């Protein structure tokens, strides 16, 4: 770890770095949401993004997932400079986002939601039919791999608990071969037990080599889960820390600005 990384201007020479966003700026009208933020994500790590409300976390994440193209700055993925204007383009670069509303259809079964928009079919042209068997078994395998409390894939999402829904949405993002999975407050609405199960899912995602970017307001969770933490304040990533080398107190001080990075 070099000093330059800690100040938020990473040197992208580290081979472990999968994605680096450098000097990202984004304004909405007169509001400068991002004033040149820079962060890095490493392979097989959970990277947490913390900061007060309005610090620019969500905007930065939206830039990375293709929802808002940044005004300026570069995003480097696997050593290549990339840019995407839509979530679809980000998905092509294997960046998947678990949306806060989860984007699940309650009236459809788990496997149908898992494959929605990317269904597997057999046959040709207009005679293509859904390959239900393959979709069910694939969804079952991929969800079982990741989540602990898996519902049967044929059950309707309406019958799933909040944690199961979250696990399904995460498994779906990972199931599409996402190299990077972005999650915005994945456990915000969950109880203690369900939070624990979702955290296990996120850990198994990391153990499968996925780079996870996690926005969280929960310091305990950040300390428990993450390998690296980026602190945002006023549109900038003001500090980057290895989780093992920091403490909750230091992070709070960095967020409020009581301590300069």
């Amino acid at each position, binding site marked *: 770890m070099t000093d330059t990384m800690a100040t938020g201007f990473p040197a992208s020479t580290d081979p472990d770095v999968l994605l680096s966003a450098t000097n990202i700026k984004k304004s909405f009208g007169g509001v400068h949401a991002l004033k040149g933020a820079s962060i890095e994500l490493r392979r097989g790590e959970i990277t947490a993004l913390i900061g007060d409300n309005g610090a620019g976390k969500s905007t930065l994440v939206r830039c990375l997932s293709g929802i808002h193209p940044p005004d300026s700055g570069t995003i480097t993925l696997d050593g290549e400079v990339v840019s995407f204007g839509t979530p679809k383009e980000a998905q092509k670069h294997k960046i998947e986002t678990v949306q806060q*509303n989860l984007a699940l*259809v309650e009236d459809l079964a788990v496997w149908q939601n898992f494959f929605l928009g990317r269904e597997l079919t057999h046959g040709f042209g207009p005679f293509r039919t859904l390959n239900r068997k393959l979709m069910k078994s694939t969804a079952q395998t991929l969800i079982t791999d990741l989540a602990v409390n898996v519902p049967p894939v044929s059950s309707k999402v309406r*019958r799933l608990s909040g944690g199961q829904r979250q696990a399904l949405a995460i498994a779906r993002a990972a199931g599409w071969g996402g190299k990077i999975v972005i999650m915005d407050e994945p456990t915000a609405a969950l109880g203690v037990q369900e939070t624990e199960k979702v955290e296990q899912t996120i850990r198994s995602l990391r153990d499968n080599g996925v780079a996870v970017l996690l926005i969280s307001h929960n310091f305990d969770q950040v300390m428990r889960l993450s390998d690296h933490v980026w602190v945002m304040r006023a549109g900038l990533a003001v500090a980057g820390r290895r989780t093992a080398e920091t403490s909750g107190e230091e992070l709070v001080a960095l967020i409020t600005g009581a301590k300069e990075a």
Partner: protein
Amino acid sequence: MTTIAKERQGALQSLLGQTRQLSFWAEHAAPIGLVALVIVFSILSPSFLTFGNIRAMLVAAAILVILAVAQAFVITTGGIDLSISATMTFGAVGFGIAWQAGLGFVPAALIAVLAALIIGILNGLLIAKGKVTDFIVTLGTLSMATGLALIVSDGKPITVNSSELLTLTSGSIGPFGYPIILAAIVGLAGWFVMFRTRFGLHIQAVGGSEESAVANGVSAVKVRIAVYLICAGLAGLASLLLVARVGAAEPAINTAYLLNAIAAVVLGGVSLTGGKAKIVGPIIGALLLTALTNGLTLLGVSQFYQPLAVGLVVVLAALLTRYQKK
């Protein structure tokens, strides 16, 4: 052996247990209602369950079955097509005009379907692209299609003496007349499209949660346009049966078909808010409504009571659907 017997007993008990719950009756309102009606009418009228009457009922049900399947596609997306019967009328008049002009059966039939599709594309574009409420759009096209049918036919029925149409009404395989066979094919195709194709899944997704469907890359606009086209196309197909049945292309309003088509879908357990697809249910709903009308006629009940009976059944069914399992 004993375990099988036990399992059977268990299955029977769980079935009996289910019947004590209101949701069981709500889920299966249409088939239970149909069976109940058949039992009641066959006791009250000896001619109800005769070969001839069953055949006649099935033929009479054909148009409504097709319209119910058509409406089910639209209602699954959370929409509604109030113009469905007017579209059918417009198609029928289109057939009549083409036939009168000396075109053969097949070209005239194609014109009927095309005429209906014009209304369908209008509905689809206004609702999906124009973002106008489905209720208002289809109420407008109901009036427009009715008016156009009156204008092009000059308000007079066009008599059609087509041997093909005669075969269509009178031909049969066993107790199944050609119209109900056509309706059954439509039902099968509808079921297949809804539950076995990518497009069908997208219809259900858009109806369930448009926002989530779009977030997963489904084009809600295309899906909505497509269901209104399907609905209108099937109404055009039904118009052939209508002309065959009446023997003429009439610019009549056919409001009963509109109400009964929606009623059949509701009876079939499809939620008007969308997302819950059913094809068999609406078909059974259409058969039930036809059996109800037929039975009342056999019993000599005045025609005036039939809309009242249909209305009561539909309201009761709608009340029952509140107890469906989520």
